[in-house]
Every structure is written in structure tokens, then in C-alpha cells.
């Protein structure tokens, strides 16, 4: 292994040059980078949230609930449809992924089946005896689940982007999870806009209007809803008696803005033509009566209709602050989430900790490098210096790989770099020790170097491979920051093999050829 063909030498040089070129952007600020010509590499390392600071939220979408809601809608449609066609039925109920009903009159079964078929697009309808089923197929269910999740992601995108953050990332994870990562974002603000479904509906109010008793059983067609932040003089929460029927739905909203009326923050809204028409009809027929605005099952406001509103726009006033008005307007603009969301994991880092971590990481790397380098010189003298040059190159290649791949660098990732500094010299140590031994056994310098490298090679590969396996497992089972560690460890192992087997060897051989020593100083 003491010959180095010309093309190999060129290869090593090229790799080193590329390494320097691709890792260099990390030394400059973003501003300087944009001034450089396009053909120069300009990608910097991608810093993780624990280094940049920001919010990390893992959200679970209760998709089964959304599916269930959809099925309840189907059930209602079946009921209405059968009633209209005057088909008698019994036991109309929900089943797993579907709805079932028993038709009283045998002769009306096919008519019933046809009517039910019209309700669910793509759902299969089965008949057995006098029972009719309408169900989701597996495929349709899968599609619906995916569609619901994607719609949720889209709406979250609108909401989060309105906050004006730098590169927020909102991604699906698995079948029912969404990961929101917002560098520099305020986790509290994010949680506010994520947690609210924002389903807005407009209802008429029961003549009884309000009650203090939440357990009151109202008459049919009326429900009891809590007022948002409304209390009587004794501090007890006020509940409203709201008619169940939805007069106008928030689905028909096209715009919503925070604004000010009589010095107080309010939220303005505007309907599309369908919504505007419904709004006009309801207000025309109910002048003088209260009109409740319900958001996520809470009554935010119940103003009295003073006149028919034909323009399709209006104002919601209540106990709003400028911030909460702005927030509500954003939620209305983005649309209601099709599925309730809960936050199941949060890992948010403030900017001060992020900056501290970067600082600590830099210091650890620099001191680690110096300490190990100095030690190697003490241990091996001249050969130690060669190993140190290879170590420095190792780090440069590592940085270049991270920048090129845009792999995320996390705090554990920096720990991985420091660890690589300590472990990378191992390969060189294995070689040097072997060379030392071979020389002691009586080999000439060149022969010793040759034997050293050949014998040590398999050991190096074996040893590094086991650590590599550990890194792969860590990547598979780890998450976020731990993955960053696995990546830097794995890349570090590869670059250290390269720098030992190619770079140090080249240096040693060149030195051998030039100096032609009688004995190796090992």
C-alpha cells in the first residue's frame, strides 16, 4: 500500500479542494453569501431548532372523530331522504365506517336503496333482507383520512404563515400527525392558532335567551351553550339557549379583518353570495330578535338584529383586545379545521438558549480539536502532525458534507462532531502502532509502512463499521436531535476513514520518498 497512482493523488486533492469550497460558506454571514457569484457554493449548514431557537410542536389530528362526524352527516341525510320519500324505517344507526337502516316495507327496499345510493358518493350500498347498509370502502376511507389531514395541513399553513415567521415547516407525519417547526416562533402564539378549530355558525336564539344553569334541559331544537367570558354580577358564567338550526355557516365566509369601531377592537366579516343571501333572509325575517354568533360551541356575541343586512357583511363585537381580534380574523380567514387537533409533544427552545448552545458547541469543538491535536504531537511527533492535518481535513469534509446534504445540525450533532474528533484519530493510531510493531520486527521503513497500512486496514473497517451500525440504529429509532447526532457520527466515520486511508497515507508516503530515512521516528 505504498504506491499512490497519479489519479488517486489527483482524486485526493480534488476531494480536499471541494471539501474546503463547500464548507467555506459556513464562515460567512448570509449577507456576504448573497453577494458572491452564483457558481460558488453557498449552502450553509442547516441549524436545528435547538440551536436556532423556535417552536417545535407535534400535533395529533383526531381523524376518527372527523370521520364519525361525517358519518353522522350521512345518517341525517338518510333520515331526511327516507322521510321525504315517505319510506318507513327502523333502527337507523351508525356502525363501523357506515350507516345501517331497516326498511319496514319490503316493496320499498329498492326505492330506498336508490335514494340512499344518491347520498354517499363512492360509498357502497348493500342490501340483505330488509336491511340496507351504506359504507365506506377501505380505499375511500383511506382517501378520506388523507384528505382530512391534508386539508388540516393546508389550513395550518395559512394560519402559521400569517404570523410572518421565517421558513416555518408544517409537515404530515404518518397518517394522523402534523409536525410544525417554526424557527424563531413564539410557541404560545402558535398554540393559540393551532388549537382552535374555528368553526363559526350563526344561530337564532330561544326566547328564554339566557340561563345560569348549564344542566338545564331545553325544549327540542334548542341547545345550551356557554357564553365566551361572560359572567353575571356574582361571577357565575352565563349560558345561552341557542336554536340548534344553523342559519348561516362560517364555510361561506370569504374574508375577515380586525378593525376598530367606536374605539373598541372588533372583527369584520364578509360572506360569499350564498352566505350573503342566507344572512339577508335571516336578518330580514328576524328584526328585533337576537342573533347568536357561535365559535367552537361558545357564544362570542349575540347582538340584536337592528335591520335586515343585505350586503353580506357585518361586525362581531365583544370583549376583544387588538390581539384577540386579529387572531379571530385570522382563524376565520383560514377556515375551520376539519378535525380537532391536540398537541402531543412540544420541544421549544428560546433564542437565548439557542445562542448559548451554539457558543458552547463552537468552544467545545475548537478546544477539543486543539487538545487532541496537541496530544497527538506529543504522542507521535512528526507523524502526529500528519495525523492532525488529516484530522483538520476530516472536519472540513464533515462540514462540507453537512452543508451539501443540508442535514440538520443539532446540539447532540455537535456532540457527535466532538466525539468524532476523539475517535477519528483511532484509525491513524491503529496504523501507526502497526508500523511501529513491524519496524520492531525488523522491517525496513517502506516495508513497515506497507505492512502497517495493509494489516491495519481490515481492523479499521471492522471497528468503524460497528460504530456505524450503532449510528444507523440511532437514526432509525431516534427523533429530531438524536437523529442529528447519528448523522454527524456516521458522516464523521466515513470522512475519518477517507482522511486516514487516503490523506495521511499520502503524506506519510510522500515524506518517506523525500526523506528516505533509515528508521521511522515511531
Amino acid at each position, binding site marked *: 500500500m505504498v504506491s499512490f497512482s497519479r489519479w488517486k493523488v489527483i482524486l485526493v486533492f480534488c476531494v480536499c479542494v471541494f471539501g474546503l469550497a463547500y464548507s467555506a460558506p459556513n464562515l460567512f454571514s448570509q449577507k456576504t453569501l448573497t453577494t458572491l457569484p452564483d457558481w460558488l457554493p453557498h449552502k450553509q449548514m442547516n441549524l436545528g431548532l435547538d440551536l436556532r431557537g423556535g417552536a417545535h410542536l407535534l400535533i395529533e389530528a383526531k381523524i376518527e372523530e372527523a370521520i364519525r362526524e361525517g358519518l353522522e352527516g350521512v345518517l341525517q341525510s338518510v333520515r331526511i331522504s327516507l322521510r321525504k320519500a315517505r319510506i318507513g324505517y327502523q333502527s337507523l344507526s351508525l356502525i363501523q365506517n357506515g350507516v345501517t337502516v331497516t326498511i319496514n316495507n319490503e316493496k320499498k327496499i329498492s326505492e330506498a336503496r336508490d335514494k340512499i345510493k344518491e347520498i354517499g358518493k363512492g360509498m357502497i350500498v348493500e342490501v340483505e333482507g330488509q336491511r340496507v347498509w351504506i359504507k365506506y370502502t377501505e380505499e375511500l376511507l383511506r382517501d378520506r383520512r388523507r384528505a382530512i389531514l391534508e386539508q388540516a395541513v393546508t389550513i395550518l399553513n395559512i394560519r402559521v404563515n400569517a404570523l410572518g415567521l421565517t421558513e416555518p415547516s408544517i409537515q404530515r407525519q404518518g397518517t394522523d400527525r402534523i409536525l410544525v417547526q417554526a424557527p424563531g416562533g413564539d410557541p404560545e402564539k402558535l398554540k393559540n392558532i393551532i388549537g382552535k378549530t374555528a368553526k363559526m355558525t350563526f344561530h337564532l336564539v330561544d326566547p328564554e335567551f339566557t340561563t345560569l344553569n348549564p344542566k338545564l334541559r331545553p325544549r327540542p331544537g334548542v341547545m345550551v351553550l356557554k357564553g365566551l367570558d361572560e359572567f353575571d354580577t356574582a361571577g357565575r358564567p352565563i349560558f345561552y339557549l341557542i336554536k340548534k338550526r344553523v342559519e348561516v355557516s362560517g364555510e361561506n365566509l370569504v374574508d375577515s379583518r380586525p378593525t376598530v369601531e367606536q374605539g373598541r377592537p372588533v372583527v369584520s366579516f364578509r360572506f360569499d353570495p350564498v352566505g350573503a343571501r342566507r344572512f339577508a333572509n335571516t336578518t330580514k325575517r328576524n328584526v328585533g330578535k337576537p342573533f347568536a354568533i357561535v365559535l367552537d360551541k361558545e357564544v362570542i356575541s349575540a347582538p340584536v338584529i337592528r335591520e335586515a343586512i343585505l350586503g353580506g357583511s357585518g361586525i362581531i363585537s365583544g370583549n376583544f383586545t387588538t390581539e384577540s381580534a386579529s387572531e379571530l380574523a385570522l382563524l376565520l380567514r383560514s377556515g375551520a379545521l376539519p378535525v380537532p387537533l391536540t398537541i402531543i409533544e412540544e420541544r421549544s427552545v428560546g433564542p437565548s438558549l439557542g445562542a448559548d448552545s451554539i457558543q458552547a458547541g463552537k468552544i467545545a469543538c475548537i478546544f477539543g480539536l486543539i487538545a487532541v491535536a496537541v496530544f497527538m504531537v506529543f504522542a*507521535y511527533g512528526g507523524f502526529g502532525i500528519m495525523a492532525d492535518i488529516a484530522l483538520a481535513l476530516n472536519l472540513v469534509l464533515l462540514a462540507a458534507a453537512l452543508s451539501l446534504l443540508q442535514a440538520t445540525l443539532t446540539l447532540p450533532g455537535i456532540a457527535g462532531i466532538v466525539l468524532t474528533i476523539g475517535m477519528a484519530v483511532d484509525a491513524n493510531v491503529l496504523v501507526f502502532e502497526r508500523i511501529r510493531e513491524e519496524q520492531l520486527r525488523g522491517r525496513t521503513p517502506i516495508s513497515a509502512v506497507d505492512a502497517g497500512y495493509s494489516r491495519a486496514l481490515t481492523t479499521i473497517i471492522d471497528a468503524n463499521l460497528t460504530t456505524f451500525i450503532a449510528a444507523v440504529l440511532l437514526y432509525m429509532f431516534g427523533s429530531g436531535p438524536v437523529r442529528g447526532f447519528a448523522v454527524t457520527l456516521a458522516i464523521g466515520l466515513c470522512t475519518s476513514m477517507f482522511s486516514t486511508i487516503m490523506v495521511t497515507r499520502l503524506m506519510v508516503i510522500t515524506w518517506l520518498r523525500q526523506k528516505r530515512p533509515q528508521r521511522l521516528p515511531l
Partner: protein
Amino acid sequence: MKLINLIPLDTNIKFLRFHRLAIYGSLLLCIASLGFYLVKGLNYGIDFRGGILLEIRMNQAANLSILRANLKTLGLGEIELQEFGKNTDVLIRIEKQPGGADQQRLAVTKVKEALGSGIDYRRTEFVGPKVSGELVEAGIIAVISALIAMLMYIWFRFEWQFGVGAVIALGHDVLLTIGIFSLIGLEFNLSTVAAILTIAGYSINDTVVVYDRVRENLRKYKVRPLEDILNMSLNNTLSRTILTSVTTLIALFILFFLGGEVLKGFSFAMIWGVLVGTYSSIFIATPLLMNMNLRASAVALPEEEIN
């Protein structure tokens, strides 16, 4: 004066003399570790327990007893406070509140109100029960997979006797690491598991280097008694073992002292792991080869391949 010359190449330490002592000593430590784990348990972080973690920095040195008293009145269940590096930094751990995500948020709001203004919230972490369950599962599977993967790898590269020796040494290392964490009460979280996996890689790394030598020597000196060959191999690789351990420890100590508070647990685990891993390669993995009836014939090359 090169340091390396301090470690002569022709040492002849009879490592295997310590075989009995090492086995008994290690057995004792393993039992002790198991004992600590079963009796005292591990100080699981929220990654595995679920709950809320707040890292805060106050304007002046924190008075933990006052803080503790203040927060206790909020009735949020178990609250743990500890200093985190500087005396202005406090780590607050709150157990998972019954109820959904809203309850957790409410708890955080209450704590923030109680702490008042002028607090820098450096880190907020919340792990719900579903996620913590998944993390526990992933952690266990990862460690077990590592043990199996390493065993298969060594079996593939060497003979089965080597594999058994290596895995026993590895299990020993993992057990002792869990033991020390239990004893000291250091927080056992995801980065600890990452450290354990890395220790596994490093320990096997060390063991493989020695095994490689054992195999080479077995092929060279077919007639010598196994104990001599094992001793010889250990002595041959001694200088490399010491040097690599030293450089790795240098890097890890720097990480421990300069790498920030968050990495302290990880670097401590790694330092302990390197020490234990090196010890187990020399005093457990290699001597065990004797008990495994390892013979030169096991590693002999087929006739044609001997050069």
C-alpha cells in the same frame, strides 16, 4: 520526547491472571447495578415519563425553597426543581396533568404567572403520554437491536465464541451504565439512550480490535496455549487501546466541561462508557474466550488461502 515511547511495545502484562478477580468484580457490579435499578429506579426524564419541563433563567440567584413553596400552592401535582448549571438557572419538572393538552397549557400558564416577570424561558418541553410511550418503546427496541446487530456482526466476521464474549461484555457495559445512572440519580432521557447506543458501538469497536489480534495470533502461533495468545494479543494492542481511549476521553471531558449544561448528562454517560468499555474489552470479552473452548482450528484459514 514522544509520549508513545512511554508505552513500550513489548509489554508483557499477564492480563489473564486477573481473570477470576475481574469476573467476580464485574459480577458484583452487575448485581449492584441491577439492585440499584430495581430498588431506586431511574430518574426518568419527561421523554419517558411524560410531563412538562421548563428551563428558566432568573434575574438573580434562584432560591429553590421559596420557588418550591410558591409552586406547590398551585396544586399541579408533583413538581421537581433543580439548579441547572448557573445558580440563576432552574429546571422545573411538572408531572403530566390529568386531562388533555389544554390542561397542560393551563398548568404552564399558572406556573408562568406564579413566577412573575423578568424570567427568561429558555426551554419548554411537553411530552404527552402517547409520545412518551412510543419513545420508551423505541428506546428499548433500539438497545436490544443494537445488541443483536453487534452479535450478528461479530458472528459474521469472527466465530461464534467471539460473538458471545463480545455481547456479554456489551451487556455488562449497558448494565453498569444504567447502574451508575440509578446510583447518582442523573436524568435518564433520550440523549442517555443515544449515549448507550454509542457506548455499544465504541465498546464493540474496542473489542473487535483485540479480537482481530487474537485471530491473527491464533493463526500464527497454532501451538501456543490459548492463555498465552490472549495475553499476547492484549499486550500487542495495549498501546493503541490506551491512546485511543485517551484521545476520546480528552474530547469527552472537553465536551463535559465546555459543552453546555444540556450535554452534561450525555458526556458523563459517554465518559463512563469509554472507561467501562475499555475495561470490559480487556478483562471480560477476551478472557471469556478461554471459557468458550476457542481453538486455533476455529479461525484457521483454508489451506489455499494461507500466503
